[in-house]
Every structure is written in C-alpha cells, then in structure tokens.
C-alpha cells in the first residue's frame, strides 16, 4: 500500500496525529466535557432540547448506546459505554412507566427467526407509530428488540390495530390492548407475554458513594484512633459525647482543604452555639508541618494528627481522599459524610449549624 503518498495527500496529517497523541498524553481535551443531548418531541415535528434537566446529560465521552427495558416496567432505560473512566453507565428511566404502552416481540418462521427488518405499525390517537426490529443501530450497538409503543397518559384500553410486515413479505394484522406485551410468531398468531414488572435499584446518594470508599459505615461507632493533639487541646471525647460532632480529615498537601479550613473556622462559633462540635484530624505523615500550618491560617478549633497505622480505620482503599468530614451523633455513631469542599458541603454544614 502506498501509505506515504496517502499521507502526503492529507497534508498536515502526520503532524496532526503526532501532535494529538502528545496532547492526550498531557491530558488535554479535544471536544471534551460535552453533555449528552436529549431532545423531547413536541409532537408537531419539532423538538425541545431538555438535556440539562434530564439527568441523562452525562459529560462522559460516550460511544456505544443502547436502549432497553431492563426492568420490564414498560419504559426504555439507557446503557452507555464511554471511552474512559466508567466501563458502562446505566440510566434508569424514572418517567416513562407513568404512561401506557404496548410491547411487541417478534419471531420469524418463513423469515429468519430474528426477523430483522420487520416493520410494526400501531394505530394510535397520535397517528401511525412505525417501528423496525433493527439488527443493530446507532454506533456499535444493539438495542432491546422488543418494540415499545407509547400511548401517553390514561390511554383507552383499546383495541389498537397493529400490523406487521415480515421480511418474507407476509403482512399480518392484529389487535392489542393497552398494557399488553405480546409475542407475534410469523404466520402463527399472537400470544400474550406475562412479564413481571420489576424495578431497577434507586441511585446511590452522594453520601452512600463516599461511604463505599471508607472503612467506617453509617450507624457504626467512630473507631478508636491513635491521635496526638496539636497544641494545647485536651482530649476530645469521640464516643458518647452528648452532642453532634463534625470530624474533618485534612492534610497540609490538600489544596481544597486550604479553602475549606478557613470556612470551617468561620463556622466554628456558629456550630458551638448550635451545640455541634468541630474537630480537625490531619492525615499528614510528616506531622511536623501541622502546627505551623494551623497557626498561619489561624485555625482555632481542636486539631489532632493521626498515626499512619490507623489510616485504614477510616479509609478503605490505599488513597486518602481529603477533605472528608464525618458527622457523628450524640452517641458517637457515624451518621453522614461529606467529601471535598464544595458549595454543597458548605450549605449542608451551614444547615447543621442552624438546625439546632
């Protein structure tokens, strides 16, 4: 193959390709962080971009995409395979099941058993809905081949006229009712499928996600830790203290901690007044730097350093993700967790200070 001349024809391509490889290695983006796009049909031939309120608008760099009713609740869930970070994303449809539907599965006899290319039409108040049993669609992907027809809210029971044009050329007509799932076998008629309506699990809350990275769980007692007070603080009671307590894990090398700690300092009097304790625990291995760091930033709430041997009592994995704030109840049980310093953390902590 005359590869060289092909490359010459493409002008800057060699330059571009080497350049791109270098850029990706450096962590540069190329049309990155694009949100996935969902367009809602208005029913008049126009669409409304609802991406930003859909929850389906991930910034993952999606490639393969398939639709399917994973829990047989009568609506299409979504599976995406992105190019990095997550091997797959599974989106539970929270709204489609509120509307009525008809589901049609197909099996060919004269046609190939797959019956790819079969076209099903359903007469509804919204016109003739037409769907094809596709042998692959979109990019790299294959969606649930059981065809779902939406009927909208409070649809009449029916019957709804349905026709199938099989790849063999055979055309058949049936009637179906709202809510039915049916299997059509070419030339052999219709049978009803009795599919149990199941439910995909609810999404993890933010705090559940954080706890999965921790060695301590919700409702568990805060562990005994080998702590050394920084400065003149007396030992804090982490057990049955009789009051709520915020325990903030941080490190001198942690950039968001430097943002968070002055904010915590300014919240400290409010929290005290509300009867909520605040304690900092540094996870620095070089503990010598800690007192100076606190002094420079004028941090007045009690602080400790934690022995490295006890890191594993808090963090499940090898990496220490700080800042981490655990919320303890009056009996010393862990009841909540915040990771990272964000507007969300701030408002949650402010709410704590004000709720008492």
């Amino acid at each position, binding site marked *: 193959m005359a590869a060289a001349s092909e490359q010459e024809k493409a002008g800057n391509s060699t330059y571009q390709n080497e350049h791109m490889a270098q850029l990706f290695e450096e962590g540069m983006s190329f049309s990155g962080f694009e949100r996935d796009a969902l367009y809602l049909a208005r*029913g008049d031939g126009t669409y409304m971009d609802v991406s930003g309120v859909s*929850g389906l608008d991930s910034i993952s760099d999606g490639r393969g995409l398939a639709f399917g009713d994973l829990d047989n609740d009568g609506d299409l869930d979504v599976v995406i395979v992105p*190019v990095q970070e997550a091997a797959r994303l599974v989106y539970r449809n929270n709204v489609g099941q509120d509307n009525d539907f008809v589901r049609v599965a197909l099996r060919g006899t004269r046609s190939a058993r797959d019956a*790819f290319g079969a076209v099903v039409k359903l007469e509804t108040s919204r016109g003739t809905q037409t769907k094809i049993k596709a042998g692959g669609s979109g990019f790299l992907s*294959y969606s649930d081949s059981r065809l779902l027809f939406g009927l909208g809210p409070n649809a009449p029971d029916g019957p709804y006229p349905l026709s199938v044009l099989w790849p063999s050329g055979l055309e058949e007509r049936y009637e179906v009712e709202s809510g039915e799932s049916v299997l059509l076998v070419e030339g052999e008629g219709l049978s009803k499928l009795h599919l149990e309506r199941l439910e995909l699990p609810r999404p993890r809350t933010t705090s559940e996600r954080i706890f999965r990275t921790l060695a301590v769980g919700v409702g568990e007692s805060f562990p005994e830790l080998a702590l050394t007070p920084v400065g003149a603080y007396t030992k804090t009671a982490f057990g049955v203290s009789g009051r709520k307590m915020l325990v903030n894990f941080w490190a001198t090398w942690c950039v968001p901690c430097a943002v968070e700690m002055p904010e915590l300092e300014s919240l400290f009097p409010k929290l005290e007044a509300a009867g909520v304790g605040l304690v900092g625990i540094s996870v620095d291995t070089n503990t010598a730097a800690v007192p100076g760091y606190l002094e420079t930033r004028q941090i007045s709430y009690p602080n400790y350093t934690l022995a490295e041997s006890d890191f594993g009592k808090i963090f499940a994995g090898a990496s220490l993700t700080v800042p981490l704030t655990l919320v303890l109840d009056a009996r010393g049980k862990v009841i909540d967790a915040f990771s990272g310093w964000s507007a969300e953390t701030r408002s949650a902590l402010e709410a704590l200070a004000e709720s008492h």
Partner: protein
Amino acid sequence: MRNGVSCVLVWLLCAVALPASAQTIELDRAELERVEDLSESLANQLLELSVSMRRQDLAQVATIFDAHGSFDATLFPSKAGPSSLAFKWIESHGWELDSEPRPLRREVFLASLEDFLAHFTSIEDVRFKVKKADFELGEPVRGEASVFFFLIGRDPAGRREWVRGNIDLRVHLGPEARFVIDYWRFQNIDSLSSRQDLFSEVSEPLGMWEDVPRFGVAPNDGFVAHGVAIGDVDGDGLVDLFTSGVLGNRLYLNALDSGSTFRDVSDETLVLFSRQGTGVLLVDYDNDGDLDIFMAAVGEQILLQNQLRPSGKLEFLDVSAEAGVDHRAVGFSASAADVNGDGFTDLYVSSYNLYGQIMPDSWSRARNGTPNLLFINQGDGTFREEARSWRVADRRWSYAAAFADVDGDGRQDLYVANDFGENALFMNRGDHFEDEAALRGVLDPGNGMGVSFGDYDNDGDLDLHVTNMSSTAGNRILARLMPDATADDALLKKLAAGNSLFENQGDGHFVNVAAAAGGFGAGWAYGGGFFDYDNDGWEDLFSVNGFVSGKTMKDT
C-alpha cells in the same frame, strides 16, 4: 496549545480545501489562524471562568475583570420571572434583566453574581462557550465575542434547573496575554426546570460499575471497543447486557426477578476469554431459538455461539473460524438482516482504517478505508463473505450501518455512515446493491457516526437519524470563513452542523429536516437515535457526545 494551529482548525481547513474554493482560502489562512488562536485563547480563559464559577470561587472569577475602574455591564439577574409549564414535566421561567449596560464597579457586578448563584443549592456545571469572536489586531488587541452561557444546578426545591443565556462580550488583551472583560451584556437568559429527575444513573447499585483508566493510559489505548447489546440470552424473559470494552467482553445476566441485580457471568460463560470486539449484535444465526453474539473487531471478526443447555447452563463457544467469519477488517459497527431472503440472517461489518497509522486520503471524500464485509449465511451454520459481488465492499471509512426496506420492494436496503465523506444508501436489487444516497437525498456529507431508522412524525414510514460531528470551534471558524453563505457552502456548513434527521417523503426519498425540527447541534456525537423515553407516542432523540475529555477542560 501553542503551535498556532488548532487541531480543529487543521481538520476544517483540510475539509475546506476543496478544488473550487482552495485559492481564496489559502489567502486567508495566516490571519485566520491568528484570529482562531485568539478565539481559542479566549475560549480557554472562559472555561477557567466556568470552572471557578462552578466552584463559586468568586476571587478567581474576579481575575478576568479589571480590578480598577469600572466596565459597562448588565448585572446578573436577581429576580426570577413567573414559572410556566413548558412541556410535560418541564417548567420554564425568565429572569428580570437590566435592559442596557451601565458603568459598574467590579465588586457590584460580582455581588450580583453571588446573589444569582445563591438561587441554587448545588451547582453541577457552568459553561461559557465562544460562539463567534472577532478581533482587531491593534495595540492592545481588542475583541468582541458572542458567548453562550449555561448553568446546571438544583433549586431549593431540589429540582434540576438549567439556565441558558447569551452574552455579548468585549475584551482586550492585557498583561501576560490574558484577556480582560471590558463589556458584558446579557442578550437573554432563561431557565428550564424539571419536576422530577427523568433519569438516574444506577450502574453501581446494579453491580455493573467498573473503573476504566483515562483514554491514552494502558490498557485504554484501544480503538473503539465500546459496543453494547441488550437482549435475553438465557430465555428467562428479562433482557441481559453484553458489552465489549477496553477491559474485555462482559456479560451480565439480569437477576432483578430474584431480588438481586445483574450478575457478571463473563467468566463462567467464557465470553471473557474471547478476543475483544468492537460493535456487538445479538443474533440467532443458526435459527435454533437462542441468541448468539456477533462482534465486529479490529482483526478477525468474532462469532460466539450460544450453548444454552436445558439445565440452564449458559456458555458461548467461539465458532468464528468454523463459521467462516474470521475475515480481517478494522471492524466498527455490526449490522444484520436477511439480505437474500433465504430465511437466514446475514451480517454486515462497517470497516474503518487504522487511523494514525493510515490517514484518510481526503478529509471530505476519503476512499482508503478497509473494505466493508458482507457475510451471507449459508443456512448450515457457516457464512461466505460476498461483499464484492454484492458491491458493498465499500472503501470509505465506515462507522455504522443499518438495514431497512427503504423502497418497499420487500428487500432489505442498507444505509452506511462514513467518516470523512459522504454516506451510502445501498438499494438491494436481489443479487447486488446500488448506492442511491445522492438520488434519495441522504448523502449527509461530513462525519457520520451512528445510524437508526424510526418514524419521527408518525406518518407510517421510517425516517432516518444520523449522528454527526458538530463543533463550537468549527462553527466559529466557518462563520468567519463564510459570512455570506450560499448554496455552494452547504457542504461546509454541514461539516459543523450536527445530527441529521431525514424525513421519508413516503417513497424512500428523504429530506433533512434537522434545522426545521429545531436543530441537533449536539456535539461530537457517536451513538444516538430514536427513543420515546416518556411513552407519549412520539419518538424523542438522544445522542452521546464528546471526543476525549482530558485532565482539564481546556480544549486543544
């Protein structure tokens, strides 16, 4: 990026360098590159602004404004207008805006921003995107830009809210080559909010979460091993999930009916030990009643036969060689239909090329891809590769394909989406195909990525959706190149326009109605298609977008 030529720019210039327009473009190139470099630099600085606003780091936000003196601006709006039901679960409301900019001190402007951000209990994303920019190359360099702004957050009621607005900016290039904003005017701003979350991501509670390294970090240096198939492989009435992927093939069986979630059976069913595929299909190639797995692949194509036993034991046997599908290709998507009407499903592989090792011989009409494959099912468990005799051994850089009987003659026709050029609509003539994409209005020049058929207007025929590339940078460059668009420039515009929606005229001829339908400039789109997610009887559209997100948002 500092080499003065952005990747997007190189790509578009090459695309633009068509015979008819080559000369004029050459003349503009140097200035164009300088101006695009400035646009890109402004765009990246606005991305920094996006990030600092998302973090509500007002000290960082402040750095893009002049610390001294005042600048002309309209304040961030402080008062939301009344809400009205826009559609279904979606409400919309406006915001009260100052009509004209007035001289404001930086602190006053930032205080209005702080008040505005206080409307949201959490902020997921903020973005300022440069749609159009012009610069005067004086001393200092001055510029004007049209900027699209959005914010996604939650309101105090916990509902997702999406604020969108357009802003006119004037800037000058200050010290350290950083732009300073001299003028900020909201043209408009409004919000959509949803009464409930339409979708929730649940891969982790489903037991299907797996970490994958960043693109470019081993083993994630692969090509396009990102396929997914949904279907019932064990015949229990629940659909299961198969994915290819850079970590290898995975099969998850649906166990929601036993109070469990999904069970990873990749190991015990042996799919884990098969070669890595790209595009995936569930197909009963041997008509024995269970679903087999066909995978396109870079290298030899892969067929895994379902060996479901009456006991319920499920294994997949690699029969690629015995079945005769072990032909080499740079296989991307796989598609299936009975092409010759013999009652057995045939298979088609869209084949690309080893981008990087081989570059397209043209950015707009590339013909040096690897030939696509057509496997004709012999009905005895074997296939014969007959793409040449069926005249579909296309050498374009094919991404994806889909079958449908477009002209109503009872034969399965084939639409193929190609990168770097035009797409094909192969009409099935019984023993060969003929490309009628031009005649039928579906050439869709550009960078086709994904194909699906569906009926968007419920008129009883199948329309066609093709995902494509759209790029803010591309649009920006084209707007400057082609301020007075004519019909001749349609191709160029198309290169940056986004996804296409082709309405079937009832006779297998199509018209692209994307613009009339509202426009689908989704981004750099891959998978996508028709999807009536709310079961209202009208096909909605969805596409996944984005090429590669790096460590920072800063774009090349």
